């Protein structure tokens, strides 16, 4: 178990992949015929081995335990043979079937092990041969669908999502408006109304740069006497009023504002 995520296995069991692997090992070391599985001997050895093992992974432990339970069940049947004569290696039909099944599974597993070993040899041979793994040619326009699978699609979408996560959305800053421009804006607004709210000029989105520029513009206008500012409560909205000492006409002439003129008063 090298490339498999099985953190729960102790060193002792690492050599055995599962209960069948262990059972097969026990059968082979005692050189018994798989088809006539000697339940007594194998069960004792199996349990002895299990005792020396500590499992951390419940699932692996479970698979070993299920096998242990099966073996113990079979052994218990041997102790109570159908003929009533203990000692005979004889099982009732159900037990015999179970034994046969177990023997068949073992034989099957043994075969798979052999095939696995054959594949390993084959892999080692092929490792000595080097061929192209990436094409020099441009990829075909048509993607061969038979090469695709659900797994590859999920992997592709997951990779895409991961990439998106890493790439945080970039914020595009609007060109900050200048204090002078904002002053002009406020002035042109004040031409059509006596007072207006700071928030309506600065924008409800509370973009920091916008608010700072607006505040600076307002303060400058207050300093120049072009506007008055009133804040009735802490953190409350600021009411901007037209400065009394600046005639409307002068302000209009000084500012080069793009704001629309009030209706009925053409520029």
């Amino acid at each position, binding site marked *: *178990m*090298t*490339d*498999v*995520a*099985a953190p729960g296995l102790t060193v002792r069991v690492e050599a055995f*992949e*599962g*209960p*069948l*692997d262990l059972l097969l090992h026990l059968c082979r070391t005692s050189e018994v015929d*798989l*088809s006539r599985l000697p339940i007594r001997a194998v069960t004792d050895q199996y349990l002895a081995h299990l005792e020396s093992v500590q499992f951390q992974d419940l*699932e*692996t432990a479970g*698979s070993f335990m299920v*096998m242990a339970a099966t073996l113990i069940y079979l052994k218990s049947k041997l102790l109570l043979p159908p003929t009533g004569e203990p000692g005979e290696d004889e099982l009732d039909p*159900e037990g015999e*079937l*179970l034994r*046969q*099944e177990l*023997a*068949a*599974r073992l*034989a*099957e*597993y*043994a*075969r*798979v*092990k*052999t*095939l*696995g*070993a*054959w*594949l*390993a040899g*084959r*892999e*080692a*041979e*092929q*490792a*000595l*041969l*080097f*061929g*192209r*793994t*990436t*094409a*020099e*040619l441009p990829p075909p326009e048509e993607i061969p669908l038979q*090469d695709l*699978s*659900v*797994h*590859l699609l999920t992997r592709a979408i997951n990779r895409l999502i991961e990439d998106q996560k890493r790439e945080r959305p970039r914020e595009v800053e609007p060109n900050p408006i200048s204090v002078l421009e904002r002053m002009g804006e406020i002035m042109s607004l004040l031409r059509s109304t006596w007072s207006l709210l700071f928030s309506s000029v600065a924008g409800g989105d509370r973009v920091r740069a916008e608010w700072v520029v607006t505040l600076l513009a307002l303060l400058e206008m207050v300093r120049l006497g072009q506007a008055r500012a009133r804040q009735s409560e802490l953190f409350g909205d600021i009411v901007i009023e037209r400065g009394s000492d600046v005639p409307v006409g002068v302000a209009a002439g000084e500012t080069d504002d793009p704001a629309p003129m009030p209706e009925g008063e053409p520029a």
Partner: protein
Amino acid sequence: MTEPIDILEALLFASDSPVETATIREVLALPSAEAARTLVEALTARLRDEGRALQIMEVGGGFRLVTRPEVAPWLVKLARARTRQRLSRPSLETLAIIAYRQPVSRPEVDAVRGVNSDAVLDNLLERRLIRIAGRKDSPGRPFLYETTREFLVAFGLRDVADLPKPDGELIIPEPPAPEGEAQGELAKELAGAADPSQQDPGPGGTELASRG
């Protein structure tokens, strides 16, 4: 330099996957698949006779240009790494089960191995040695797995028939049934379903014959 045999060499050189006879025939506008095969044989002979470091391999239903094993040590040096990450024993055994019984579901693979095969299957999927072939029409509709062309290429096989004949039949026990009786029934069915004519039971086959 534009003789068909030279073009074929270029085709195999430039391609990352095995080139099928049909493709060779199409690209070179050959009259028949037989002609394509003859051409491949001619190129194989030429590479061999000239003592070249390359050879043609028939894998995964096509032809591939690969280096000869004798030059492997130098190529490993060139790569400055071990050739390839080898598959673990569980992976190889799982692959063997799938190769012989495809398409096969995870519970069936688990039943043969006696342990959970989730992680191993994921690893094989990741390496593209197996792929999902669909779903099995059984409770839970588990995925069915089959081997890929990459599997054939990785193990130098023309097709799955190139695999050695298993010693006796590969029988997948049914996933554990809730009742002992049902299990017995299944075992009988399985044993009955075994068709001896299709198999070539070796010495181990007799073990199973006694089951029914």
